[in-house]
């Protein structure tokens, strides 16, 4: 299986939205997809069609977390974070500090096909959850907005990370009518040509509207630009997977 963690150094860049969109796109392509919510906000369920899930990864000891999974109509299996009490959450963070490979061990025990894809939505870095997701992942997809803050974050990551093979940068919410966004996109593409995805995800009101309607964007507005971009990123992920598998 191919494990992809979606992280970011800034907040509000759309990790959960993109995780939901990517998993929906991959599910529609007929792939086996598992989406895991590793963010205490517990919002992935809302994006995938169900809200207020109290049982999830954080509330299930041992391997019972698999029983808390749900399946969407797109064929996506997803595991919510759950609504743990403060004590339980604190205990879990201590356990993650002790054992960073906590998640990867659990995933390795999962019966999942080789060509399946696991998407992990994590809390914003720095955080234990984000670190855990990165640790478990074959590829970490860093999201950002086309503004100096996110680009600065990308810069730090590209300097800090020893191997550039397992990270990638993705720009979200790009509005081509804004000069700053256009310039940021150009800068990112030119500065990190191998790491930055050539396809950004454009700003599109349809994303928020789809969420408001409780629908996947592909059901709500298949012709939306954001839908097209998400499909492009999904295809890129699949290509990356087949390249690394060889």
């Amino acid at each position, binding site marked *: 299986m191919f494990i992809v963690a979606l992280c970011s150094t800034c907040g509000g860049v759309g990790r959960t939205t993109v995780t939901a969109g990517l998993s929906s796109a991959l599910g529609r392509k007929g792939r086996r997809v598992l989406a895991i919510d590793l963010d205490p906000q517990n919002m992935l369920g809302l994006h995938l069609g169900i809200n207020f899930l109290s049982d999830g990864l954080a509330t299930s000891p041992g391997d019972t977390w698999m029983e808390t999974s749900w399946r969407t109509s797109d064929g996506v299996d997803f595991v919510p974070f759950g609504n743990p009490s403060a004590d339980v959450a604190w205990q879990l963070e201590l356990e993650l500090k002790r054992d960073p490979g906590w998640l990867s061990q659990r995933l390795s025990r999962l019966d999942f096909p080789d060509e399946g894809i696991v998407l992990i939505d994590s809390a914003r870095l720095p955080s234990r959850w984000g670190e855990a997701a990165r640790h478990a992942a074959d590829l970490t997809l860093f999201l950002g907005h086309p503004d100096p803050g996110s680009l600065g974050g990308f810069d730090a990551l590209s300097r800090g990370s020893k191997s550039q093979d397992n990270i990638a940068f993705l720009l979200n919410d*790009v509005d*081509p*009518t804004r000069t700053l966004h*256009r310039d940021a996109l150009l800068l990112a593409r030119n500065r990190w040509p191998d790491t930055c995805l050539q396809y950004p995800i454009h700003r599109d009101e*349809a994303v928020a509207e789809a969420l408001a309607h409780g629908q996947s964007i592909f059901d709500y507005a298949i*012709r*939306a*630009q954001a*839908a097209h971009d998400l499909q492009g990123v999904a295809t890129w992920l699949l290509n990356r997977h087949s390249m690394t598998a060889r």
Partner: protein
Amino acid sequence: MTLPTAIRSALLFFAAQLAVTIPNSPRQWLWRLFIKPVCLPSRPLNPPSRLIARLSRKLGVIDYRDTSEWVLRLLFLPSHRAASEANETELAPGFFERLTQPLTSFVTVIWEHIGPAASRLIPHTDYPAFSARLNRWAEVVAIKHPFVQWVLLILATLLFTVASTTPMNWAEQLVFSLFIWWLALFIRRLPGNLPTLMLMIVSLLASCRYIWWRATTTLDLEPGPSLFLGFLLFAAECYTWLVLLLGYLQTLRPLNRKPVALPTGFSDWPTVDVFIPTYNEPLKVIRATVFAAQGMDWPQEKLRIFILDDGRREQFREFAETVGVGYIIRPDNFHAKAGNLNHALTKTTGEFVAIFDCDHIPTRSFLQVGMGWFLKDPNCAMLQTPHHFFSPDPFERNLDTFKRVPNEGELFYGLIQDGNDLWNATFFCGSCAIIRRGPLEEIGGIAIETVTEDAHTALKLNRRGYSTAYLNITQAAGLATESLSAHIGQRIRWARGMAQIFRLDNPFLGKGLSFFQRLCYSNSMLHFFSGIPRLIFLTAPLCYLWFGMHIINTEAIYILIYALPHIVLSSIANSRNQGAHRHSFWGEVYESVLAWYITLPTTVALLNPHFGKFNVTAKGGLVAEKFFDWTISKPYILLVALNFLGIGVGIGRLLWWNAYEPGTVLLNLAWTLFNMIILGAAISVASEARQVRVNHRVAIRVPAILQLGDGRALHVYTQDYSLGGLGLALPEEISATELAKAGDKVWVTLDRGDQECAFPARVVIANKSQLGLQFDELSIADERRLVQCTFGRADAWIGKNDGRPNDKPLEGFREVCSLGLRGYLRIFQRIRQSLTNNLHSVAQHIVEKFESPASPTHLSSKVISRL
């Protein structure tokens, strides 16, 4: 009812229909048969019965009260454009098929019975494998046994000579022709280059036999006019044979050169000056070229762009200054474009010079794709790329064949230049090319002795021993000529120039050229002398039909048996060789259109090469009104009239005067009929279609983002664009009306590969599946980006020929026949229209005269009230 009463009521009925107010007057009957009345007899506007309503809808009759329209519609369906233009009576695509329905169904039925059996006669094998095996054998012989190769070649030449010159009686010739036809039908199923060569040889066999037979048996004519005309015809046929042979040699094996990569270190990349010469073209034409040139991928410090303005206009100078390109003027205009370029050469220093006509917009990859060859081959002095037109030329526009049939220039840029490249005989075409400065200055700059300065320059370079290259990748596109007269004017200039070069700097004489270079250049020049032979072919059968002169001394059956294989096999070979670049039989149309006009200039230029001046081709104008170019088509109408009379006389000969030689009459009649079809097609080109847009629309499909006012962003594709606006194609489930309405402001984002560019626009058309946008006033930077995201994209012209049907000789023939018929219909319409228009006022007066003032009818009262 008695007979006279019945006749009378019928007459009255027709009188009412045609608005003949005095049925007793034969003059008025005659008048009304051709001239419509000022206004029709009053009948209700809506048709009285549902039957008539349905019939009129089905046939496309717009005014059911007009009898002549009914008659017209029964024969000719309106085109799909008739809804908006009530006067237009175009031929629907299926018209020709409908007219010949019985004949075609008969032929189809026969073919369905014979076809399978006939195709079984041709051996079925795995064609690609067979072709590969042939290639291997040829390679083995060529590489490993060169001695055997030479022996085989000599034997083959001997065999060919024997086969073309052996006299045969008609039965033997028939069997021989059938055999080589069968051979050709088999060979043409084999893919690859070697079978193309074999087809050429088979076709040459038939053609050589024909010419030999003509030369040896048919020139035995009575002294006098017959002998003179007979030899004239034979000379024309020799010309055609020679051009065929040279054409095969020229396109023996298209080189298909591939681009060469440039070195990775920018320090090795040379400096390039881009020249954009202009004389009287408007500024808006040159803007796009300048912007696209600024977008070319080349180190900015090594690229300099210059506008060479022979008009010395202040507007251009300001533009150049604003945009940041160079501006060069000179005090005079000697030698037109050549002089302009030479003057600029003295003012610039780049190692290479890239030349673009003011309307040829280069893509960003032009230099990167082309310059590699110069670094690889230090002896290469010139690299030419194809001229692609994003607007339809007069043929395509008037005949509505844009994107369906290859245009006239495609044969040259798609095949002939590629063939020339093999022999190192590519010549410069005036634009979309790069020239090395050193050799250019060595020959004294661009040639000024002739009006086709570009070909002459390349000839001089070749003579010095430099090589020229052709890259068959479209890297620039421009405007085609606007009207037929401009098109012909341009061709006349080329023809004159080529004739001048032929006289002043003949490729066969002088040193510096290889044998094949001489052949290639000569063929290109010979091509422009086709005026007189074409005119001879268009009038030859009239010698017999009008005057009874026999200019070919043989029986009709022999002509058929010798000429048909020649025609059929050369069209098979040509279809195989050039089918992708020119459909069969279209060459006849192109040549016929030009024939009259290039005869005189080429003859004059041959006799006196220094006579005549450079005339610039008009570009960027607008054909405002639909009109029929009578001036241009006068010669063709004359020829058509001559041929038509010839047919009349010919029928007479067939039935009475020459009934003893029906074969000859029929053959001449068939030839005349073919000529008339070709002339009809030539005439239909003169009927200029209206050109609505000032900015030319280019059909292109690239992805775009449409951002609406409410924040939604849609993924769409462009359908066409121009410098004024954009047409978007929407997916089926979305209707433009639910997105926006006319007047809404939107943003459309295009990308040029690495950058995204958003442009503000306004919706002008929003209907079911299309959205038409008009750009607001764009800043200079935005305009530059727009050009670079559209015309300047490196992949802008890849796949320009997708979706075009392949050539089949019979299809080509049918296309041309359909065009011919359409040409006559258009003439008929124009005559009818101008008659009605011009005589309308006269009709009013005459009608007034016919009505007695004592008892005015409703008709004349309406007339009087109008006056």
